[in-house]
C-alpha cells in the first residue's frame, strides 16, 4: 500500500496554506500571552517611568494576535518547509551530511538539567556540563589522534576561523610576523579561504590538477617563507581522498607552516583514518554533521576545534580540564587568542554529539562510517548506469562520503539540465538538491550524500526518482515544458535573487516601501 513498490515513485503532494504575513493577521487588543505583573507592594516603584527621556515613545509595531492563531500560523509555516531530515530523503544536501538526529538526544536537550543551567554559574555547580565537555573532548582526541579540543566555536566555519586565529597567534608568538599567507585548494570548502582571510591572512587557492586532486606541483611553487599554514578539506567535495596528503603536509612543514585539516567531510572516515597520522597540527569536526546533531535550519551548530599539545596554550578560554577530582574551567591562559563565541559554545549540541558517540562506541562509530561510504558507493554504482549522468575525475577510484555528479550528458542530449531535474524531483517528495558553488568547475552539477542513516530502500527510491526525471527528459520532454514541479510547494520567483536596493523587501516596512504597490492583485 502507499508508494508503488515496483516503481518506488510516490504520488506526493505538499501542503500549501497561502498563509498571510504575521502583520496581516493583527487584530487590535488580541493578546498572545500574559506576562507577570509587579506585585502590589511594588506599585509605588517607578518601573518603566524611571527610564525618563530614554523611555520608548512609540510602541513597536508588532502584530497583536491571539495565542491559538500564533500557534496555528507558525505550525502552518512548518508544514510548508520541505527539506527536514525528519520528513524527507535528504540525500539531496550533499556536503551537509544530513543524518537522523535521534529523538532521545533531542528530548534530553530540553531537560531542565541542561536547559536551565547558566554558563557562568560556578564550575562546582555545573560539573555535569563540564563532565560532558571533557569526555566528549576525550572521544574526539581518540578519533583524531590530536591532544586537545575546544567546543566553543558555534559552527564549522567559526571553528576554522578559530584555527586561523590560533595560527596567527602561534606564528606571532614564535617571532614570525612575516608569515602572512595561507594556502588552500579550490575543492576545499569555501570557508577554508574565507575564514583565514577574515583573520587577516592573504589566501592562495590552488586550482586542482587535471585529475581533480589538489595539485602538488602548484603547492610547491606557492609556498615560501611567508607561508603561515595550510587549510585543506580531505576528501574534498569530489569525494576523492587525497592520497598524497602527507606530502602536502611535508611541503608546508618544511617552510614552518601549520597544517589545518577541515574535517567537515569526516563522516565516512571516523575510526578509519585520523588527522594525526596524516600529520596535521589542527583539525575540526562539525558536530551537527558527522555527530548527528540537527542542523536547525542553519544553526545552532557546533564546530569542535582540535590541536596538538604545543598549540593548546593558544586555544580559546575558558579551557575545560579535569584535575583528577573535579572538572575545571581555566581562564588563566596568557597566550590564548581569547574568545570566539560567548560562554562555552553550543552546549546542547555538544551533548548530543556525546550521546551519539556513547551509543555507538568504537565498533558502532566505525560501522556508521563504513555505512556512509557503503551507501555512497552503492548509490554511485546505480547512478553510473543511469543515462544522462556522468562522473568526472577518479574513474577507477572509490569515493568516500559524497559525490558531485554531472548531468552534462542529459543536457547535451535533451537540452534539459540540472536545474530542471532539480525542480522535477520535488514532485516525488525529494528536497531540492545541492548543485555546487559558482562558478561551476563541473558542468550541470548535482552533489549527493546519502550518509549513514538512510537504508538501501531509501537509496533505491531516491535513485528511482532521478531515473524517472531523466527518463522523462528523454521520452516525455513536453512534461518539462509545462515546468515542474506540480505537487510541491514551489513558487518560481521572477528573479532568482533580489539584488537591487529598490527591490529590497526584507522587512515589513521595506516591503511596504518597495514592493506592495508593485504586487499585482490576484
Amino acid at each position, binding site marked *: 500500500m502507499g508508494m508503488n513498490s515496483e516503481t518506488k515513485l510516490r504520488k506526493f503532494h505538499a501542503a500549501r496554506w497561502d498563509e498571510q504575513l504575521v502583520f496581516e493577521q493583527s487584530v487590535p487588543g488580541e493578546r498572545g500571552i500574559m506576562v507577570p505583573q509587579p506585585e502590589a507592594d511594588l506599585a509605588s516603584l517607578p518601573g518603566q517611568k524611571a527610564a525618563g527621556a530614554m523611555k520608548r515613545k512609540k510602541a513597536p509595531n508588532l502584530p497583536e494576535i491571539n495565542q491559538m492563531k500564533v500557534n496555528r500560523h507558525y505550525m502552518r509555516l512548518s508544514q510548508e518547509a520541505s527539506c527536514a531530515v525528519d520528513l524527507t530523503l535528504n540525500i539531496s544536501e550533499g556536503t551537509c551530511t544530513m543524518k537522523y538526529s535521534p529523538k532521545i538526544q533531542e528530548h534530553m536537550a530540553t531537560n531542565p538539567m541542561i536547559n536551565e543551567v547558566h554558563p557562568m554559574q560556578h564550575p562546582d555547580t555545573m560539573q555535569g556540563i563540564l563532565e560532558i565537555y571533557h569526555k566528549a573532548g576525550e572521544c574526539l582526541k581518540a578519533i583524531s589522534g590530536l591532544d586537545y579540543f575546544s567546543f566553543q566555536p558555534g559552527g564549522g566555519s567559526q571553528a576554522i576561523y578559530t584555527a586561523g586565529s590560533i595560527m596567527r597567534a602561534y606564528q606571532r608568538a614564535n617571532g614570525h610576523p612575516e608569515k602572512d599567507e595561507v594556502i588552500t585548494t*579550490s575543492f576545499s570548502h*569555501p570557508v577554508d*579561504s574565507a575564514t583565514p*582571510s577574515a583573520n587577516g*591572512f*592573504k*589566501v*592562495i*587557492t*590552488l*586550482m*586542482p*590538477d*587535471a585529475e581533480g586532486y589538489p*595539485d602538488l*606541483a*602548484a603547492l610547491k*611553487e*606557492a609556498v615560501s617563507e611567508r607561508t603561515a599554514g595550510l587549510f585543506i578539506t580531505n576528501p574534498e567535495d569530489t569525494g576523492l581522498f587525497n592520497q598524497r596528503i602527507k606530502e602536502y603536509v611535508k611541503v608546508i612543514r618544511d617552510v614552518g607552516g601549520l597544517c589545518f585539516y577541515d574535517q567537515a567531510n569526516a563522516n565516512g572516515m571516523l575510526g578509519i583514518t585520523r588527522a594525526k597520522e596524516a600529520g596535521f597540527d589542527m583539525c575540526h569536526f562539525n558536530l551537527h554533521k558527522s555527530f548527528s546533531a540537527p542542523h536547525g535550519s542553519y544553526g545552532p551548530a557546533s564546530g569542535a576545534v582540535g590541536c596538538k599539545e604545543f598549540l593548546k596554550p593558544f586555544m580559546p578560554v575558558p579551557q575545560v580540564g579535569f584535575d583528577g577530582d573535579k572538572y575545571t574551567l581555566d581562564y588563566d591562559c596568557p597566550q590564548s587568542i581569547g574568545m570566539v563565541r560567548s560562554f562555552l559554545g553550543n552546549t546542547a549540541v555538544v551533548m548530543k554529539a556525546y550521546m551519539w558517540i556513547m551509543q555507538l562506541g568504537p565498533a558502532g562509530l566505525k560501522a556508521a562510517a563504513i555505512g556512509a561510504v557503503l551507501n555512497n558507493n552503492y548509490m554511485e554504482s546505480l547512478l553510473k548506469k543511469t543515462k544522462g549522468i556522468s562522473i568526472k575525475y577518479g574513474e577507477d577510484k572509490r569515493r568516500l562520503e559524497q559525490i558531485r555528479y554531472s548531468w552534462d550528458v542529459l*543536457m*547535451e542530449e535533451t*537540452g*534539459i*539540465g540540472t*536545474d530542471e531535474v*532539480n525542480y522535477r524531483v520535488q514532485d516525488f517528495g525529494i528536497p*531540492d538538491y545541492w*548543485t555546487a*558553488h*559558482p*562558478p*561551476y*568547475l563541473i*558542468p550541470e552539477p548535482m552533489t549527493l550524500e546519502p550518509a549513514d542513516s538512510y537504508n538501501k530502500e531509501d537509496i533505491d527510491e531516491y535513485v528511482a526518482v532521478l531515473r524517472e526525471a531523466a527518463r522523462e527528459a528523454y521520452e516525455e520532454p513536453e512534461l518539462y*515544458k509545462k515546468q515542474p514541479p506540480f505537487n510541491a510547494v514551489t513558487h518560481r520567483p521572477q528573479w*532568482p*535573487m533580489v*539584488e537591487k536596493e529598490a527591490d529590497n523587501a526584507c522587512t515589513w516596512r521595506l516591503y511596504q516601501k518597495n514592493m506592495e504597490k508593485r504586487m499585482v492583485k490576484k
Partner: protein
Amino acid sequence: MYKIGLIINPVAGIGGRAGLKGSDGVEIQQKALAAGFKSLAPERVGLALEALSEFRDEIEIITFPSEMGEDVARAAGFKTTVLGSIQSGKTTAEDTIRAAQDMMDAGVDLIVFAGGDGTARNICTAVDDKVPTIGLPCGVKMHSSVYAITPRRAGEVIKAFCDKEEKLLVDGEVMDLDEEAYRNEDVKAKLYGYLKVPEAGALMQKRKTGSGYSQDNQLKLLGMMFVDRMEEDVLYIIGPGSSTSHVMKDLGLQNSLLGVDLVANKKLVANDVNEAQIWQTMQKYPKTEIIATVIGGQGHLFGRGNQQLSPRIIREVGKGGIHILASKQKLADLYPNPFLVDTGDPELDASLCGYIRVPQSRTQDITFKIDR
C-alpha cells in the same frame, strides 16, 4: 514585442562533422558536402527556438531568406520577417555581413547567430559592438567567447535577456585563428574584435545559490586593485582584452581593446603601440611590468599572434613582472586547460611554464598552470 535577428551560416559545422578542422575555404566545404555531411546549424537553432516557444507571441524573428534563417524560423512557428536576398546554395561571408547590417538597421534587440569563429568575425565586422549578439555553437572552432554553452541554454539566455529591464552585457572576445596553421597543429591566436554578449554566466549560476557572484563586479574591483598597486616610475604594458580594459577605465584613460597600451605614473604614455615602440619606451624607465589577460576560450596568454609582446620584451620584464587579470569565472571556464604561452622562443616559453598567481581580490589569489 521583441525583435530577434537570426543568422544561420548554412555551412557551419560541416567541416567538424567530416573530421576536418573548421569549415572555411570552399574546398573544405565541397569536400564535406560531397561526402554527404549536412550542417548542424539548423538543428541547433531549432533547439534554441524550442526553448523560446512559450514566448512565441512576444517575439518577431528578423532573418534572411531560406537556409540563412527563414526556413528554421517558420518551421518553429515564429512570426518571421525576411530581409534581403541570397543565392540559395551559394551563400558566403558577405551575405552574413549584409544580414547583420540589415538587422541592425531594422532595430533588432539582439542578433542570434549560428556558426563558428568565422561567422562571429563576420558579425563583428558588420555591427562591431553596437547590437547585442549571442552565438549558438555548431562549428568546430569556438575560440571566441561569444557563445552560449548549449543551444537550449541560449534560448533561456535570450528569454532572460529580453525580460530584464537592465540588459547586462559584457564584451565577448572574437578570435582570429590562422586556420591553415591550426590545421597543421600550430595555434596562433589573435584577437580580432569584440561583440556585446549577455552576461549569461551570471544569470545561470546565481539561480539557487546563496552567493551572488558577478563577474562584472569582480573585474571592476580587480581594475581598481591593479591601479592601486601601481608603483611610481614603472612602465606598465597593458595587454589587449576586455578584462585589462578595466584598468584603463579606472584610470580614466583611453583604451585600445585590441591593442597594447602603455601607462606610467597613472598617466597614458601611448595607445596601440607596436613592438619597437614598446621596446624603445622601456629604455626610459627603470622597471617595466606587464598586465595581461588570457584571450578567448582556449587560454592564450602570449601567442604568436601577440606580435607586440616579443620575446625580448617578455624576457626583460621577467616572470615576476607579469601580472594576470582574470576573473574567477574565466578561470573556471578555462579549467582544466592551462594558460598557453607561445612566444616563438622555446627557451623563454619553458621558463614561463609552471604556475602563476592570479589575484581575485585584495586578500585572495588563485594559482593557475601555465603551459605551452
